């Protein structure tokens, strides 16, 4: 995965944002010397009066966005997820979320997109951090189509949100023209009764690949895409847990505090279910490309399928012993 083909979520985002901002002049894009990595060049060229540069100053960018919003603007602050989920965290918590400001924080090159640049540039903590902030929606689209629809939704949404997008092109999860984003709703991509693979963001593709592998072994897996970590579609998750009795979560995030934790919080209280949480362990990743790190930590169709099989075998063994 490399290069800047039109299939990356960030390209889909900026194209959709440009469309929305042409139609609604209140929409502004704010960035911190990141117009290149966000792919906002065309936006700046076409709508210079709706484009604001703050220089390399993420805290200031978010504070400015909050002030702009307080004066009737709908602001998309765009830049690397690693900085907007850490350095500017307090501004997002207070100036945006606590204030209820009409600001969307769009973190690009999220997760381990920056690969070998190292952990300074990874954001494997952003879901954990932001889902603990009241009033802030947390959205991770899984492909370009969902990114476009989520962006169109946010262009008409007046509350705070955090969005994480990846850097590299990703394979389509959805077909062109399919309806793939409803705020606060999960999408069931595959329906199977043996286990449920619940994934978010750019890990969803690998969850689908895992389900394909499992089906060749006669295991029918539900695959659920969670584009909204907050608000979380608890009903859909609990329904999948009840139907299958075995849940595997997959995310490009620390195993602490992310989607897996959110699902575990829910099912442990309302429908205790066997689970495996697949993500990045509590360590700093070795140098490697995004794809190499996904492979290293088992976020591939093959390895997710193995985990699912293992979970089902464990369950079977325990059932026999009982």
């Amino acid at each position, binding site marked *: 995965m490399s290069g800047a083909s039109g299939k990356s979520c960030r390209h889909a985002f900026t194209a959709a944002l440009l469309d929305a901002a042409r139609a609604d002049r209140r929409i502004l894009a704010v960035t911190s010397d990141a117009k290149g990595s966000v792919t906002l060049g065309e936006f700046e060229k076409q709508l210079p009066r709706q484009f604001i540069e703050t220089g390399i100053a993420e805290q200031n960018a978010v504070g400015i966005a*909050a*002030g702009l919003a*307080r004066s*009737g*603007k709908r602001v998309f602050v765009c830049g690397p997820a690693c900085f907007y989920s850490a350095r500017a965290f307090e*501004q997002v918590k207070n100036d945006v979320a*606590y204030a209820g400001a009409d600001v969307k924080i769009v973190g690009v090159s999220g997760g381990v997109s920056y690969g070998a640049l190292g952990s300074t540039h990874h954001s494997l903590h952003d879901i954990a951090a932001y889902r603990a902030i009241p009033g802030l929606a947390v959205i991770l689209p899984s492909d370009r189509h969902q990114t476009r629809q989520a962006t169109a939704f946010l262009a008409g949404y007046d509350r705070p949100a955090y969005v994480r997008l990846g850097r590299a092109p990703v394979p389509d999860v959805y077909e062109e023209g399919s309806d793939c984003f409803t705020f606060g709703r999960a999408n069931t991509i595959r329906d199977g009764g043996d286990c449920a693979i619940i994934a978010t963001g750019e890990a969803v593709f690998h969850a689908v690949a895992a389900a394909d592998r499992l089906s060749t072994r006669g295991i029918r897996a539900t695959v659920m895409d969670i584009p909204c970590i907050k608000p979380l579609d608890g009903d859909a998750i609990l329904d999948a847990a009840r139907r299958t009795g075995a849940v595997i979560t997959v995310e490009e995030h620390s195993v602490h505090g992310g989607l897996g934790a959110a699902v575990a919080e829910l099912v442990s209280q309302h429908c205790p279910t066997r689970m495996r949480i697949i993500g990045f362990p509590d360590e700093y990743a070795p140098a490697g490309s995004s794809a190499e790190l996904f492979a290293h930590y088992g976020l591939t169709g093959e390895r997710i399928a193995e985990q699912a099989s293992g979970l089902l075998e464990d369950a079977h063994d325990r059932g026999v012993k009982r």
Partner: protein
Amino acid sequence: MMTTEDLKRVAIDSRKALLTMIHRAGGGHTGGSLSSLDILVALYCRVMRYRPDEPDHPDRDRFVLSKGHSVEGYYSVLARVGLLPEWELDTYGSFATRLYGHPTMSVPGVEAPTGALGHGLSIGVGMALAGVIDRASYRVYVLMGDGEQAEGSVWEAAMSASHYRLHNLTAIIDYNKLQISGDVDSVMTISSLRDRWTAFGWDVVEIDGNDMDQIVPALDERRSAGLPPKLVIAHTRKGRGVSFMESNPIWHHRVPTDAELATAIDELDAARATTGSPQRHEERVG
């Protein structure tokens, strides 16, 4: 329009109100509320244009209390001008009041939930930038603390305000020389503030921030487009208005005892007896 003498009397009344609030609640930021109070009175009773019955009016002048801990003085002034019901000041310190120990969006007139220092100027920059984009005529005021100058984000905001030539933005530093641990310069040297802000591209003036005759003209300037933002270094005294609280760091957030409150009120009443009675604040906008 209130005369300067009227403003001085309002400031005395508001000092009494804020001390009473802190005493009743059993907590608060006494010193900093007193040092910055004259600036708040000048802004809300004379300089700023807004409608108390329509606090979100798009043409309103905007104020951000970046030093959000000076909230008791802020609430007392918001109540004075009718943005907040007077009776509500009595709820300060009680469970589930909307009058938290730092300003929140649930209070009419509050533009940003401040309290974490170093945030307010960026927010003010955003408001002023929106005013420039929309060619609106409103002005934006941000009040910071002196200890707050140690926050790096202040300087990010300062840099961007001059970059965008935000003529409609005025920042004020409540330079009372004390912070919670002692003398500001002993905690972190911020002297030569004028040089620092000038170097960041701002027009800087210095005033006595407890002298209404200097505060009003410094803040009530309509600056033309193209001018840089303006910084008012307001030299103030922490605990100003009550002799035994002035310039004494223990009053950063000490709560007056019954006897201290009575003495303070007596002092303020004696000061108040020297001028005429103020009129209600008029509604002015645009």
